Every structure is written in structure tokens, then in C-alpha cells.
């Protein structure tokens, strides 16, 4: 490289320029989709997850109260300025019909918080000026709970602008009045059960899909072209069939007077219908059916690349069929097993429609609770916090999947 001529240098420079130009072209080709997805995908999801730690409800309707509580360190007696501020805010928010926003938020922080606030809103409307100018006495007269030290502390914790309340609640944790993080009492625990259920249903579905899909994929890759073609159609047809059609189909098959119960009763195996749907059985069966193609297709792709000679060589060296399978064939299929299992599991933990339609009340998974808190109880903070938990699980598993998938491409 010592005796580079000027012409060569120009060539190198021209090449670098062209290369840069192509890079920019590539970038501008990707940019439209990238920008599109930022606004229609990334930002909406970010906007939802933000609600898991944002806490502006009380602050938005009770500005004076929040100004007082944010200036207070939370120890000892509540500052005297709290009571007139609280009274003014409650009256103003009751007049503008926004008091319910604060009532809902305080209901999470104080036992019976909603009733407490709504009652105060009704009573305070009638009081212009308190006797002796003492608002604290008025609140004490309304309900002793108001003047208990932990109530003021709870209002302070709900004053925002950020909170760890929802994220902790999504894991059945909460903060004590002293600020320590403790587990919710056993009888009030919900979300750990839901999380465990989400994982156990998804795990079962993954396991069944593997147990059913592995032999099927194996036979698919080892059969004659025609048989393999037919077997592929049997996988692809459900794959292309609408999720709703397949879920409806399982209701037809498994319901009380459905085909399966009819068949089992006719051949005399049972004498009254089994409960096969609107419970865990229905959810696992229907989800396994829906997700089975996601197991079979990656498995078959990997199995197609395995040379049958490797197994034959092992057999000719004296290995039993079982040993040849266990030591030679199965290890070669592991990338397919991992890819299929992760794909099924990742899809399963986010499932909503199938459990909602064929499951019972005790079979609903994380997604159902997210939708429930958005639509029915309007607890957006908790919905977002559960979303954070679900998305965190999905992201970790997807990164593992991407590592396996790219590892295979370069191997």
C-alpha cells in the first residue's frame, strides 16, 4: 500500500463515495416504514406503558392539595395547610364533576377511599366557611378516617407525578405506610396467580404441541413426496384458517351436546356429557390446535436438513434405534425444537381471543385482565402495569429466539 498512485487513490475515493451513496439509498428506503411504525406502533405502545408509572389523576383535579402534599415530607402530622386546600379542591371538583377521578384513584390507596371522597363532596358543598375557620375539625366530623395520619400519607403518595403503585400491584406487592415494600396478604393476591396461569397454560400448550408436532414433522420429512405434500396441506390449511373459525369449531366439537360428547356416549365410554369447554381443557386443546402449525413448520424445516445417513451410520455401528435417535437424531433437531417451542410459547402468553371464548372465569390470562381493566373498571394504570409485565416476558423470549434463529443461519 506504500506506492499508491494518484489514479488508484481517486478510484478508492470514488468507490467510497458510491458506497456511501448506496448506504444513504438503503437508509431512505427503510425510513418510510421505520417512521410509519414509530407513529403507528412504537409511540402508541409507549403511550400505554407510560401509564404504568404516571400518576396525574389526583393532581389534575386537586391542584391545591397536591401543592401542599408534595411540599410535605410525609412524616408526622399532616400540615395544617392541607385541610383548607383539600376542602377547596373537593368543592371545586364536585362543582365541575371531576371529583370521581380523584375518588377512583384514592380508592386504590385508602380502604373505602371512593365512598369517603364522594361523601365529603356531597357534605362540603353545603359548608361555606367552617366554624372557627377549622377545616380539619370539619373533616374529622365527616369521618375519623380523614384525620388519621395514614390518610394524609396516602393522599401524598397518590399526588404523583410518578408512582410505583401500579407496577408493584401488578406483582402483588405494595408499599406500607412506612415505605417498605411487602407482599400483598395471601387472600388479596391476584396477579401472581394470573401470571403463573399464563405461564402454565402456555407451557402446557407448548409441551403438547411439541409432543404432537415432533413425530408429525418427522414423518412429514421422511415420507414420499406425495404423502409429505398431503401432510403439509393438513398443517397449512388450519394455519390459514381464521382464528375465529377454529375457535368456533372447537366449541362445536367440545360443547355439552357437541360431537365429541355424542361420540363418547354413543360408544358407551361415558354415560353423561363431560365438561370439555369453558374450562382449562377447552383452552389448552383449542390453543394447541391453533398454535400447532408454528411448531410443525420450524421443526420440519430443521429436520429436512438432517442427513439420514448420520442415523444409518450410528445403526450400522451397533446403536439401537433408541440410542441412534437419542444420541444422533434428536440433538440435530434441537434448533428446530427451540425455535418452535419459543414461537409457540411467545404467541401463547399473549393470547386473548381463544381463552376469552372457550375458557371459564378461572382460565383467563394476562391479556384478558389488561382488556378488562381498560374496558370495565377503567383502571388504566394497572392495565398498563400488567402490559409492562407481559411485554417484558415477550421481549426477553424474543431476544432468545432471535439469537437462536440467527445463530442457525450463520452456523
Amino acid at each position, binding site marked *: 500500500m506504500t506506492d499508491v498512485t494518484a489514479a488508484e487513490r481517486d478510484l478508492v475515493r470514488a468507490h467510497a463515495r458510491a458506497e456511501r451513496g448506496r*448506504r444513504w*439509498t*438503503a437508509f431512505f*428506503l*427503510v425510513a*418510510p*416504514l*421505520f417512521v*410509519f*411504525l414509530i407513529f*403507528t*406502533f412504537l409511540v*402508541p*405502545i409507549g*403511550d*400505554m406503558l407510560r*401509564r404504568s408509572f404516571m400518576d396525574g389523576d389526583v393532581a389534575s383535579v386537586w391542584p391545591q392539595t397536591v401543592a401542599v402534599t408534595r411540599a410535605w415530607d410525609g412524616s408526622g402530622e399532616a400540615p395544617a395547610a392541607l385541610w383548607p386546600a383539600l376542602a377547596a379542591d373537593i368543592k371545586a371538583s364536585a362543582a365541575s364533576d371531576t371529583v370521581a377521578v380523584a375518588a377512583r384513584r384514592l380508592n386504590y390507596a385508602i380502604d373505602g377511599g371512593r365512598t369517603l371522597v364522594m361523601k365529603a363532596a356531597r357534605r362540603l358543598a353545603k359548608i361555606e366557611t367552617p366554624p372557627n375557620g377549622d377545616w380539619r375539625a370539619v373533616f374529622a366530623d365527616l369521618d375519623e378516617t380523614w384525620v388519621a395520619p395514614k390518610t394524609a400519607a396516602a393522599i401524598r403518595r397518590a399526588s404523583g407525578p410518578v408512582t410505583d403503585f401500579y407496577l408493584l400491584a401488578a406483582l402483588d406487592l405494595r408499599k406500607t405506610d412506612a415505605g417498605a415494600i411487602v407482599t400483598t396478604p395471601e387472600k388479596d393476591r391476584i396477579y401472581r396467580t394470573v401470571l403463573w396461569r399464563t405461564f402454565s397454560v402456555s407451557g402446557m400448550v407448548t409441551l403438547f404441541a411439541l409432543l404432537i*408436532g415432533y*413425530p408429525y414433522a418427522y*414423518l*412429514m420429512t421422511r415420507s414420499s413426496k406425495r404423502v409429505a405434500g398431503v*401432510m403439509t396441506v*393438513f398443517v397449512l*390449511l*388450519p394455519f*390459514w*384458517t*381464521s*382464528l*375465529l*373459525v*377454529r*375457535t*368456533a*369449531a*372447537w*366449541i*362445536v*366439537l367440545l360443547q355439552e*351436546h*357437541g*360431537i365429541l360428547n355424542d361420540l363418547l356416549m354413543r360408544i358407551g365410554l361415558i354415560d353423561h356429557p363431560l365438561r370439555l369447554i369453558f374450562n382449562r381443557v377447552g383452552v389448552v386443546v383449542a390453543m394447541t390446535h391453533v398454535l*400447532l402449525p408454528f411448531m410443525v413448520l420450524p421443526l420440519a424445516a430443521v429436520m429436512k436438513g438432517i442427513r439420514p445417513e448420520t442415523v*444409518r451410520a450410528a*445403526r450400522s455401528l451397533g446403536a439401537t*434405534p433408541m440410542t441412534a435417535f437419542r444420541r444422533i437424531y434428536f440433538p440435530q433437531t434441537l434448533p428446530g425444537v427451540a425455535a418452535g417451542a419459543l414461537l409457540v410459547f*411467545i404467541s401463547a402468553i*399473549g393470547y*386473548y*381471543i381463544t381463552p376469552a*371464548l372457550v375458557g371459564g372465569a378461572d382460565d383467563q390470562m394476562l*391479556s384478558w385482565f*389488561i*382488556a378488562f381493566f*381498560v374496558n370495565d373498571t377503567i383502571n388504566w394504570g394497572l392495565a398498563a402495569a400488567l*402490559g409492562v409485565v*407481559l*411485554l417484558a416476558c*415477550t421481549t426477553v423470549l*424474543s431476544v432468545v429466539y432471535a439469537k437462536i434463529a440467527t445463530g442457525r443461519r450463520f452456523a
Partner: protein
Amino acid sequence: MSQSTMPLTPLERLSGWALAGFAALTAIFLIAPILAILPLGFSDGEFLVYPIRHFSMKWMEAFFASEKWAVAVKNSFFIGALSAAIATVLGTMAAVGLARHDFFGKKLITGLVLSPLVVPIVIYAVGLYFFFAPLGLTQTYTGIVLAHAALGSPFVVVTVGASLAGFDHNLMRAAASLGAPPMLAFRRVMLPLVLPGVVTGALFAFAASFDEVVTVLFLAAPDQRTIPREMFSGLRESLSPIIAAASIVMMATAIVLLIAVELLKRRAERMRNEA
């Protein structure tokens, strides 16, 4: 076909049969439910149950005569086609850009572009519901089409990317050296070769939209409901055979899509072998 010369032991033969039997049962498990629901579309009963006492076209006629379902069919195809078109244009451009050149943040961008495939749909639907509300996009076709285009775009990126994997980029250089401007070179050289991938991606994107129900659940006004959305309500409220009639329409579409994709796959394979 090379066959093992070793004679099979009885145990091996037995396990071979067991395997075939198991695979047959699996095939039944895969296909039977779908076949089971379709005949109920021709039942004259009031519920989604067997036995069918008399066959009749009552529910098929009811399906096509009902304004609710006619609107749903129209919505499904309209939203599917429009969102697939957006996803195909944006996805194809992105796949061409990602195919060859390394640039700053490529890995991150690839991750983002593919992320709609794995993000749980409820999280996305709720996010859109919050984000679109102040923009006035909830209860609009625009909102649903944008959502479905986002969900369909990764399919296009993946299928076009796959068909570009076998593309010889020297062809583009050759075209450029012969004086073809980039757009002309793309249209005349690259596009014909990756077209099966582009069309396959478009069909996948259409299918993704056609089957999607959760974002529609959160975003659609009553007159913007799609077929799966009406099926969802139908399955929760009354299990009427009209669901089976809707299933027949969905199945017919799915089979057309499946056949189209398989034909394109063959065509792409043939082209690769000729090249």
C-alpha cells in the same frame, strides 16, 4: 429413494406403524374441527349443534341477506386490501433497503420492523385506543387500516427479504452501467425477480388483517365491524348456525389465499432453478 439395506426388526416395523398411526391421528386433530363446523352452515336448526336434521340454505341466505354481515364482509375486504397495499409498499421498500447495505442502527431498525410479529396484540390494541382517541382516529377506518398496515408490514419485509436472499446484486450494477436510472433498474430487473415474494407478502398482510379481531374490538365503530368481529360477538351471545355460514366464507377466502401462496412458492422455486 435410497433405502436402508438393513432388514427391519419386528419392533421397528411396529414403531413405524405406531408413528404412522399417531401422525394420522394428528392429521385428524388438525383438520377435523374445521371440517366439523362447515356443514352446520347448511343446517336448518336454531343452534350451532349436531345432528343436522334437514339440510337447508336458510342460514347461508340469512348471512348474505343480513345487512350486518354484508357490511362486515365489505369492511373485511376493504380494510384488508387497503392495509395490505400500504404494508406492501412500505415493506418492500424496507426489505430492499435492509437486504444489502449496512448502515447505522440496522440491527435496531430490523428489530423494530419485525416487532409487530411478537408484541402481544392486546397491548398494541390498548395502546392504539389511548393514542388514537385524542387524534380522533378511534372509530374510523383510517385508524383500523393504519393498525392493520403496521401488523401486516413485517410479513412483507420477511417474504421480500427471503426472495432477495437469492438475488444477484451484480444485475443491478449491470443495469446501472448500461445507463438505467435506479428506478428503471428496480422496475425492470429486480422487481420481476422478487415479485413472487412481494405478492406473497401482500397476501400474508391481507390474511393478517382479514383474521385480526383485537384491534377492531378496541377501535371499530359498530358500522366498521369486520367478519371476525361479528363472529366474536356471535360466539359470545348466541351460538347460531350463521356463525358456520360466516366460517364458510372465511374458509373459502383462506383456501384461495393458501393456493395462491403455494403457486407463488412453486413459481419462485422454478425461477431459482432456472437462474
